[in-house]
């Protein structure tokens, strides 16, 4: 018998700040935290802006002995601590086997960047090899295990921008199929010049503002941060008498098998992920769609097609918004942070706005939410699509 899976803790770091309260307040205010990049010189790029988590510097480390940790590890450890605190997880609960399911696109790329640069400029034998220890993308998960003295198992997914959603989906499936009672899941990524230069070389970054689904949209804005959710089997959470934020009820995924960077334009394959998640959840009425909405020509058109193909013509009436114009595209962190925002929108019965939307695009004829508004959201759909054609959708509903 399938178990029910609930969310009992949230940890979030983004350009909007640290913690769910500050993030939610700014999200519904429609404030943009996008600005000129300060962590490196972006003046030479087509797009110069990004959503850096400027309020976050480092977290306190107690058990790890490494002298140097990548910012990715700091983001991950801090967001997880916050989620643990939020879920009132004590040491007793930490002693049960826990699943850690994470998504990242880059892992410790900031360290990798430094190492590559030193190797090129000074030679391999003079580059700091200590930089490599937290470069590989599975190292942050192990650091978290060691720092929080966890035991259980970990899985690190790297499926580009769908990674965070994949990680949440895997944790959800593992608890539902009775493999674990509790899981830490989510995603993270840092603002690295490697990615910034890469997305610029693909002409995917906007030189101005990110405006998903708008006719004048011309690219995405990168961001950084982490989103962590504590998932528990319902009875496990009830026994602990902890608060329950909501319930994950469906997950679906598919792969375009089309192109390494371009989405399959008809959205037919992406619609399979949405349909699977929707069917997995029992085909509920969808009250809100938190779109992947990157603001690129191809993604937003494909996503519109996918939503309509999966949910029918009625989908055009469902409120849709993307939060990426406010905090940027968090890559591996996007799916998790957007699942959190979907959850908060259900809790606070408020639709987050899709800012910078001024000129409707007839090809993206969805009900785009331009201003935060009260709405009786019971069930939300969160979409994530990534390079290589990875598609993932999550259905979240209110509890009880």
């Amino acid at each position: 018998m399938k178990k029910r899976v609930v969310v009992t803790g949230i940890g979030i770091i983004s350009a909007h700040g640290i913690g769910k309260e500050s993030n939610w307040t700014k999200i519904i205010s429609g404030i943009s935290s996008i600005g000129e990049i300060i962590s490196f010189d972006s003046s030479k790029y087509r797009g110069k802006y990004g959503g850096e988590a400027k309020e976050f510097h480092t977290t306190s480390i107690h058990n790890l002995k490494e002298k140097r940790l990548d910012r990715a590890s700091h983001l991950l450890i801090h967001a997880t601590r916050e989620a643990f605190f939020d879920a009132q997880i004590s040491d007793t609960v930490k002693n049960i086997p826990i699943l850690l399911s994470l998504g990242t696109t880059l892992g410790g790329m900031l360290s990798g960047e430094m190492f590559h640069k030193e190797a090129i400029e000074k030679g391999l034998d003079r580059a700091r090899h200590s930089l490599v220890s937290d470069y590989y993308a599975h190292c942050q998960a192990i650091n978290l295990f060691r720092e929080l003295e966890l035991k259980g198992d970990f899985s690190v997914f790297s499926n580009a921008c769908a990674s965070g959603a994949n990680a949440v989906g895997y944790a959800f499936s593992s608890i539902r199929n009775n493999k674990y009672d509790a899981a830490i899941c989510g995603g993270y990524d840092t603002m690295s010049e490697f990615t910034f230069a890469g997305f610029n070389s693909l002409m995917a970054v906007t030189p101005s503002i990110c405006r998903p689904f708008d006719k004048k949209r011309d690219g995405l804005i990168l961001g950084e941060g982490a989103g962590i959710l504590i998932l528990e089997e319902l009875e496990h959470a009830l026994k602990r008498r902890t608060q329950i934020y909501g319930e994950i009820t469906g997950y679906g995924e598919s792969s375009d098998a089309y192109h390494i960077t371009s989405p399959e334009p008809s959205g037919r394959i992406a619609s399979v992920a949405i349909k699977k998640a929707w069917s997995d959840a029992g085909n509920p009425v969808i009250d809100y769609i938190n779109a992947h909405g990157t603001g690129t020509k191809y993604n937003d058109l494909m996503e519109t097609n996918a939503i309509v193909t999966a949910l029918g013509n009625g989908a055009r009436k469902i409120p849709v918004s993307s939060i990426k114009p406010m905090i940027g595209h968090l890559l591996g962190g996007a799916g998790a942070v957007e699942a959190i925002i979907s959850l908060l929108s259900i809790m606070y019965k408020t639709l987050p706005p899709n800012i910078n939307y001024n000129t409707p695009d007839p090809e993206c004829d969805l009900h785009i939410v331009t201003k935060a508004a009260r709405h009786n959201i019971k069930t939300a759909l969160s979409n994530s699509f990534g390079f290589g054609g990875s598609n993932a959708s999550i259905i979240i509903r209110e509890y009880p």
Partner: protein
Amino acid sequence: MIALTGIGPVTPIGIGKDHFWNNVISGYSCMKKSTRFLSSQEFYCCEISRFNVDEHLQDSRFRRAADISKYALVATQLAIHDANIKEWHGENTALVMGITNGPLNYTQEFHTAFVKEGIDGISPSLFSESVLNAPASNIAISSIIRGPVQTLLGGTTGSLKAIIFAFQMLSTGIVDRAIVASSEELNELSLFYYSRFGYTMLSEGSGAICIEKVKGLEEPSPYCYLSGMASHCNPSNPKDAFYTAVQQSLKMADLELKDIDFIMSDSSLPAVRKHYQNIIPSGCIIPLTGNAFCVNAMWHIVLASLSIKYRTIPVSIRTDTMKISDNISHIMICSAEEKGAAAAVILSKCL
């Protein structure tokens, strides 16, 4: 029953199951001084030399892909061909890829172009092919896999975890078939880095398997079935992590340690080896193929499948002289990392 129906090894000692098996039997090792990197330091490693993707792959779209992708593309094609699949249903097929280091050569090339020539020197394809899921995406595009396509990152346990994940998708009915692959490429930076920690004999290549739900013995008969598997992590006690993974996999297979006929392990941790040394006959392929991180375990899976099929364990991989059963029924493939991650998979003979 979830059975292993196809294998595809791309190794420094042979590409394709027959070439690979024959060289394992003959004890061929390809260790030699690296010729690929213009470095002041000498490295001994196992390279796949004279690899021409066009000899193995008709699809020319992937000529500019990174080596890690090319190896994986060929391994996957070999595994699919070996499984003799008559009808391909891409929607009901999953791909799970285990990776440790990823496309490091293109990443390094990207950084070099960026540092020396600036933003204008970067080729967009260097970026898209440097992304960690590029090998999996290329396979999905090449083989038209439209079910879940996942890249799992990890140390040496990565490919065993990928098998466990694929098995879960099959057993919960998400897909009917899964391709599990693992791939690595040699890179100058990683040779430098790992040599400082005493890692020698680094290697490259790929391995892929096809696993499917089968009702019974079908033609052609599967190599074996997946009877038990588990993974665990306990950084404060790596020995406990290994013990837990082994015990849980045995429990799932309804076996005891004494029922295992042979263990293939890539772990050099003394505490881990002590667990089965002088109890169960064991072996390791690394002295022949070199160390390709998470691909090691995939090569062990391929080798174990062939060992079950041919009812013999090649002497060249043996690490002890214990007697092996004449009737090889269960082989355990395990991996344990210093940082406390461990995984085990048991392959059993189809009865």
